[in-house]
């Protein structure tokens, strides 16, 4: 009982972390058909900005209750500023280009923003542990769990619910679904696709930055720490289906739970299981488990 409960909770925590980051990636792909390698930059900048903000609060003995707002504001700030800059000044000039060129362009952006991190924040690691320390730990089935890390599950649930509600119950969500289904028809029907693109890209960027900002208090924020996460997020999105929001959720759960089981039972297979599942999905259903339907054009 303790073993299975531990594996489940470990898997769920890791899946929550992956979901928040890969959701932004898949939304951007779903709407804009862009495989955004620069998503890792949002994650990294979110983490650094949050770490910086937490440092200011901590160094000035400001109330600890400000930690959470600081993390959320950092994510929004990074998402809006970087998302707008990249969409407005780079991607918008490339929408008619070959998809491979756009991927290369986002890769270039990723490298530039990695260097900008070093210029801005230096190479020393940031350890904004205060929020995680503040919340302490609780015992669940005989094992201590950091409350802060468990709160990732709550955050992911809120994000997932917010996305579901926003997409299915609001006018804006319906417009977005329309663009996902067919951009040209949507444009012909009078939807301002350019505006949808900007908002979508900024929204995706905020989610990427939120992942980084929220994880920052549990890790060493140092240059290059986003690279592995980007690779794993791609695996999640490929498994779930490029552009599918339920796919990102299910993909994250599959990766998180399988990885947790491997770490507990056969640690040597930890990464193997993740990429083996991805390979199997690619062979059996190349578009991913929950790829959204495509309009058939004649």
């Amino acid at each position, binding site marked *: 009982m303790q073993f299975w409960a531990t594996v489940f909770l470990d898997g769920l925590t890791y899946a929550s972390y992956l979901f928040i980051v890969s959701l932004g990636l898949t939304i951007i792909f779903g709407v804009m058909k862009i495989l955004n390698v620069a998503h890792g930059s949002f994650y990294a900048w979110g983490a650094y900005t949050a770490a910086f903000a937490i440092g200011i609060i901590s160094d000035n003995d400001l109330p600890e209750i400000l930690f959470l707002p600081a993390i959320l504001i950092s994510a929004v700030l990074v998402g809006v500023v970087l998302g707008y800059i990249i969409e407005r000044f780079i991607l918008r000039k490339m929408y008619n280009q070959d998809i491979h060129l756009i991927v290369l362009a986002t890769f270039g952006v990723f490298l530039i923003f990695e260097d900008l991190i070093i210029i801005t924040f*230096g190479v020393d690691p940031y350890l904004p542990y205060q929020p995680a320390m503040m919340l302490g*730990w609780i015992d669940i089935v005989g094992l201590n769990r950091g409350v802060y890390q468990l709160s990732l599950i709550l955050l992911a649930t809120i994000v997932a619910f917010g996305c579901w509600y926003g997409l299915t119950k609001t006018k804006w969500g319906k417009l977005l679904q329309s663009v996902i289904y067919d951009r040209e028809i949507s444009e012909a029907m009078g939807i301002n696709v350019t505006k949808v693109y900007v908002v979508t890209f900024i929204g995706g960027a905020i989610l990427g930055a939120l992942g980084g900002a929220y994880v920052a208090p*549990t890790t060493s924020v140092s240059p290059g720490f986003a690279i592995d996460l980007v690779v794993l997020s791609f695996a999640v999105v490929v498994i779930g289906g490029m552009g599918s929001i339920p796919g990102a959720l299910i993909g994250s759960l599959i990766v998180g739970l399988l990885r*947790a089981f491997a770490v507990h039972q*056969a640690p040597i297979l930890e990464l193997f299981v993740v990429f083996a599942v991805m390979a199997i999905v690619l062979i059996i259903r190349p578009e991913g488990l929950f790829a959204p339907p495509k309009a058939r054009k004649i």
Partner: protein
Amino acid sequence: MKIKIFNKTTKVASASMLVASCLLAGTAFAKDTVKVGVVSFLTGPAAGVFGVPAKQGAQIVIDAINNGTMPAPYNKQGFAGAKMNPIFSDESGGGTKQVGLFRDFVEKQKVDAMIGYISSGNCMAIGPIADELKMLTVFSTCGTPRLYEEKLRSHVFRTQANAVGDSLAAARYITDMYPNEKNYTGINQNYAWGQDSYKFFELGMKQMSPDSKGSDKPQFPKLFVGQYGTEISALSLDKAKVVHSSFWDGDIEAFTLQAMVRGFFQKKIFVSSVGGSAVDALDKKFPDGIVMGTRGNVGLLARDDKSPLNVWFIKEYKKRFNALPLGPSYQYARSILAYKFAMDKAMAKAGSFPTQDQVIAAMKNIKFKSFTETISMARGGGHQAVHSVGYGLTKYNKKGKTPGAEKVKMYGPECIYPPAGTKSEDWINAGMPGAKCN
């Protein structure tokens, strides 16, 4: 007639050139500067608490030697009289990139020597190229024992002892201080350094505590993965109380943070062979009572050592960088000292500015004074250093407001390294014959 004169002139010129060539081959001209490539991580996750402190340690010693302000026995100005012109380079990007950069340093920049390298993977990639290009190379930090146990090197030296001693000293500390703990496991990075470190810790435990038992599920997460929640759960459920780790840089910091907020260190005896950087980064928040090594008598464990060179180094480092030197700062500075020692020795023997071959000959088997002890290049055919390795329990010094250690035990090279010419694994499996421990 004209032809005859021309022939005579040509003969004289040819003879002169021949004599000059012979002289050039035998001796180098005195130089004002020696150009040296110094390679460490300056970007990426390993830069902050490894690559940059390493560079800073090298800078302090290079400047002091260039200016003649280094304490004895390195108080003679210059490297064989020449000033060192260091070219600092970034180690990130992997072995293939580093091999390309190494070739560039040798063939285009015409350096006199190469010093540095932190990653074992990079050292294994650079070693054969250094021999092929006949470039004197002094490795400073990397630890894989394979570097010399697979093949002796002609142009490569390493002033840092290999990982075998770090792991065996950890096993000795555990058996000395916790003789009743018989179950152990580990969490190490999944590459040469991590796997070798745990392998030798396990081999050591089997010899030093024959009734001890290793877990069948030691953890080997990917390098720099950053999230260890699941691994911490798995280690917590494991009945082994002793947990060995050779995590370094961002990984040890992330792991410590995540384990700390779960009370992991209160339940386990955590043995970190190279986690000293995290102690300084987390300062007073770093938990007391962790078994901590620094790959030698350096960094955290050397703070109270009153050797004049060590006192000078700590003082200069604090003055210039407003921080205490970490393990890599010492390791890089030590390589510079070894290079100076060999250059001066070679010059004294040759009577003129030494050639590279003379420096290599002079560096073989040297015993040179380092910050806290004398280091012998006594393994790997005289190319590989051995030195003592210590472990202690972390203990924050509230009075001095600095991280420190207590119950420190130092294990000498004869205790934790095989005799010259013997492979580490064979020696340990044979019961470590001839080991002399205090």
